Every structure is written in structure tokens, then in C-alpha cells.
């Protein structure tokens, strides 16, 4: 599904990612853990196609094609989804109409007819229930006046609507209390499937108690320094990143 090879990325001339190798197969959930500033969010943005992130070396193959070549909307249409760490508010643009535009743009890209209003509403009701997002929130302006938890639930709601092949979830747990975390995690788990790959980026192990990963990577200073199973996350929680960092080759 996703194959990242020797990926180097600079932001404003400053190297952030320094040679990432990562392969995720359909049906797998990988977690990337790392301290602040290690390059976690950069990796997420590079995959989604944000401007200002320059790939200086290496490549990213998604379903066999060069992902970096594609515009953000083309990546989304091909099935890449980014769950934002800080979802932006868009006053004046209704959540539900925005999502309808997105879904129908993706359907068009896939050669499918647009969903009509009735089918769309039916689908959105069903998916909103998955993350307990109220009707009121689906109709309000995108993320406008949403609490931290509501924003994150809205991200997962959108993911459920768009049914991506590859979901990159950037710090989906940040700003969530334990109850909201459970709701979000249950929403994510409901979307796990043999056709879908997920990359879950987090600072803390807490999220991974609820979204149990198949593989855990530790990202420090722009490199993956350790890869293991879910027990690696627990070990990090107990020992801290300093332990891993201390063991790194200079």
C-alpha cells in the first residue's frame, strides 16, 4: 500500500526528515511514536501534500505510484486521508455541504455518479453515529466553535464518510479526555479492515491501548530508530524516549 524509501524532507531549507524507510501493507495499522520535534507531523503533511515541505531525496510510493507528484486533492481522491492534529475552522462553510462536495469530488475522480441528497444524508447519519457526532455539529460551519474533542470526532467522521485506503492520523489523541479518546478510538477501530492501512502518529502510548497497532516505529530526529510490536510502545512509556535516544548511534 505505502512504501517510503530513504525519504529526506526539508522545511524552509532545514532538514526535518533524514532518511525514512517505512512499508505498510493493506490491513495493517502502524504507529509512529516520537518526542516533540522529531518530524512526526512533517511526515503526515508530506504524505497529504501540504505546500512548503520539500522532498530532497528518496520517494514515496502509494499503490505503486509516486505520491509526491500528486496534488493534495488527487491524493485524497486516490484514497489518502489525513486526520489533522489541529483541524482548522472554516466559518461560513457548512460541515455537511463541505463533506458532500468532498465526497462527490472523490466519486467523480473514481468515475462514480454523485450521491444524491437523500443517500448522502442517510450515509452521514450512519457515520456520524459512529463517533457520536450530533446532527447540530454536522450542520454547523466546519470545526467552527467545536471543542477539541468535537474536532477530532469530526475528523474521524470525515474519514468514515470518505472511506480512504490509507489513513494517516496525526496526534488524534491530543487534547482529548479519556472518554473522548475512547469514542474516537472506537470510531477508528470500526474502520479497520483488510483493505485499509493506517498510520497512527502519537506522542503517548495511551492511544495505542485503544487502537492496538500491528507495528510500532520510534521516530527521533527525523529517523526511525526502532521498530517493534505493540510492546515497544509500552516499553517507551515506562522508560521514556531518552532511553532510546541514549542507545542511538552518534
Amino acid at each position, binding site marked *: 500500500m505505502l512504501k517510503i524509501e530513504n525519504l529526506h524532507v526539508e522545511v524552509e531549507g532545514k532538514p526535518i526528515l533524514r532518511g525514512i524507510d517505512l512499508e505498510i501493507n493493506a490491513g495493517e495499522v502502524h504507529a509512529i511514536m516520537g518526542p516533540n520535534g522529531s518530524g512526526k507531523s512533517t511526515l503526515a503533511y508530506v504524505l497529504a501534500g501540504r505546500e512548503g515541505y520539500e522532498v530532497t531525496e528518496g520517494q514515496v510510493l502509494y499503490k505503486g505510484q509516486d505520491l509526491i507528484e500528486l496534488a493534495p*486533492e488527487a491524493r*485524497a481522491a486516490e484514497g489518502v486521508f489525513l486526520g489533522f492534529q489541529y483541524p482548522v475552522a472554516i466559518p461560513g462553510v457548512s460541515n455537511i455541504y463541505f463533506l458532500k462536495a468532498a465526497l462527490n469530488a472523490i466519486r467523480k475522480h473514481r468515475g462514480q455518479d454523485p450521491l444524491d441528497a437523500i443517500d448522502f444524508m442517510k450515509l452521514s447519519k450512519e457515520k456520524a453515529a459512529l463517533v457520536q457526532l450530533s446532527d447540530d455539529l454536522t450542520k454547523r460551519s466546519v470545526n467552527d466553535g467545536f471543542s477539541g474533542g468535537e474536532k477530532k470526532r469530526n475528523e474521524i467522521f470525515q474519514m468514515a464518510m470518505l472511506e480512504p485506503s490509507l489513513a494517516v492520523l496525526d496526534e488524534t489523541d491530543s487534547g482529548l479526555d479519556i472518554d473522548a479518546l475512547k469514542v474516537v478510538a472506537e470510531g477508528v477501530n470500526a474502520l479497520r479492515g483488510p483493505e485499509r492501512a493506517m498510520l497512527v502518529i502519537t506522542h503517548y502510548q495511551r492511544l495505542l491501548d485503544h487502537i492496538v497497532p500491528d507495528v510500532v516505529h520510534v521516530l527521533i530526529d527525523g529517523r526511525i530508530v526502532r521498530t517493534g510490536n505493540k510492546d515497544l510502545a509500552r516499553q517507551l512509556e515506562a522508560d521514556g524516549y531518552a532511553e532510546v535516544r541514549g542507545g542511538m548511534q552518534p
Partner: protein
Amino acid sequence: MTETGPRLLTSLPEAFDEGPAWFRTLRERAAGSLRDHGLPTKKTEAWRFTPVRSIVDGSFDREDDGLPRVTSPLPDGVTVRSLRDVLAEEPSLLEDRLGRTPVDHFGALNTSLFTDGLWIHVAASVAAGSVIELDHGFAGSAPSSPTVRYPRVLVTLEPGSQATLIETYGGDRPGSLTNSVMEVDLGSNALLHHVRIHEQNGLQVGYVDVRQDRDSRYHSVVATLGGALLRFDVRVHLEAPGAQCQLDGAYFVDGSDHVDHHTLVEHKAPHCRSAQTYRGIASGRGTAVFDGIVVVHRDAQKTEAHQENRNLLLSETATVHTKPHLEIDADDVVCSHGATVGSLDHDQLFYLRARGIPEDMARAILTYAFIEAVVDRVSDPATRERLREAVLARIPEGEAIRGVT
């Protein structure tokens, strides 16, 4: 006035001999002020950004009375009469109403030269839901050379009455000048919703001058969707306690358009409120100007006044001048003002695109959302829908989002 003087003033008569004495005096004063002070130039502060030369040095044939047409059935209690007729038959009815507020420059020009006008009178009994539509489009086919017309409208709402007035300026008459004046008089507790839609390709200089009595409310929404050169001044005089006004506007410029909105709100009495929200979109080589003044007079304690102007610059060659300002002589007031000029938000744009929305469409969605805040303020649903359609037609890629917003 310089030796040759602006061409536009050559049509000023030497003397006024029609109508009652007070009306002749009104016109003589207006013409006198023009003879003494001329028309504005680039050096006139309030006209600094307006390319006024193309107007004052233009050569125009006098077209007609410039009377707008009433295009809606008149509600009971609403009458529309010709100003010329009333001046001839019952001039005393107009003595305290017409030309009560001195209007400078082009206002004086209109006062000197209008040949007829409309008096829209709303009786005290008229309640909410009464809609009056005025069409300022051109009658007949376009003449071979540029023309000038001087539309004049007086609107009187008797105490306690309510009405919605919708004005549309449409049609294509490049190089022709429309110099309009509308005077609005709101009796105590009266409420007027006033919508103006400008889609005319030509030169326009207009005034709306509003006087408000106790507890009256005036709500104006202007949408400027086209116009080679448009300069509009809205002046509101809050003359008695409890009067409120809300002035909202949306404007677009592209090509080499110049759109210039000036507002003046005079808080002359205590416990009055005013609020202004103007939003504009500038692209191409267009120029947009917003200049708003709120004056709070010494006795106008407990005034609340807010003023906001936000602009979206969609090209590097477009220009926006924004100048909201306050002059406050009272000490117990709540006032705010602010202005912004910016481009589309990159984070919002990326968010939409990351969800699969093509870039052009994402831009259209955000552009429309920016202006929708003003469109939503139109209370009459049919007019709101009409404005929405007109705005979508004006936004690049607006067609693409018609079913989306």
C-alpha cells in the same frame, strides 16, 4: 472654479424659475456652492482615491429624468408620486422633506439639475412584509454618445410603519453617468430594510441620505457586483434616542473596476446604535475603497457603534484602500472599528483540498463563504436568494459550487 471649469458644470442654469420659492432657494444654494467650490478633484480629501476626473471632465448628453421604475405591485398604504407633480400641486408637502440635509458636490449637482423624481410615501398603517422594488435600468436602446441622468428619490416612512425597499441598478451603458440622490426619512418606530444591487456597467455617483427619528431602525445591504466606476456615499443621521442603523455591504472589483463605498453615521442623540459590516473581494486590476466615519456628538451618551471592513485580495495587481474611523466627543460610549486586507487562508485551502476538493472549487467555496456573511443579512428570502445567485455568478468558479454552499 477654474477658468474653464469642469465640463459637467456647464449645464448649470443661470437662474431657477420653476417651483415654489423654498425649492428655488434650495437649488440656487446648491448651484451656488458648485459655482464657488466646483466639483471634487484628486486633492479633495474625501475623493482622494476616486478617479473623479473621468467624470467631471466627461462630455455627457442629458438623457431623461432618470426616473427609476416601480416594478412591484404597491402594497396598500404605499404611494409613489412624481416629485414634479407634487411640487406643482401640493408643494407644501415637500417643504420640510426635500433637500433637508445639505449634500455636497455631486449631491448639489443632482439637486440643481434633476427634472423629476419619485416620492415614495409609506403610511403609518403599513406593516412588515410590504416590498417596494425600484429598477434603475436604462430605458430604450443605448445612444451613440455617453449620457447623464440625475435620479432623485424621496422616501418617507411615517411613524410606526415598516417596509422593504429593493433597488437594482442594472444594464450596460459604458461611459454614461448616473448621479443619484435618495433621501430617506424614518419617523419614530419606523423600520426600513433597504437593499441595493449594483450591476450596472457605467459611471455612478450616488448618495443615500437617511434621517432617523426616535426608535426607528434602518438596515441597508448593498451589493456591488459590477460597475466600471462607482462611488456611493451613505449618510445616516441618528437624530433622536433609540434610533438604530445597520449598514452592510459586499463588493467585487475586477478588470479595471473602481468601487468606492463611503459611509458617515452621525450619532446626534443618546442611546443610539450603529453597526457596519462591509466585505469586499478585489481581483484583476480592480480598486476597492471603503471609507467609513462614525461621529459621536457630545450629547450622544450611551452610544454603541461598530464598524468592520474586511477585504480579500485575489490578485497582486488589485488595490484596496480601507479607512474606518471614529470621531468621538462623548465619554460614555462603546465603539469599535477594524479593517483587514488579506488573501485566502492557506490552512483552510489545504484542509479542503486534503479532503479531495479541487483547488479551484476550494477557492470558490472560501471566497463565497467570506461574502456570504453579508448576503445572509438580507431578511427578505427571495431577495437573499437572488443576491446569492448574483454573487455566485460573480465568483471565479462560482458555478462549480452552486449546489454545495
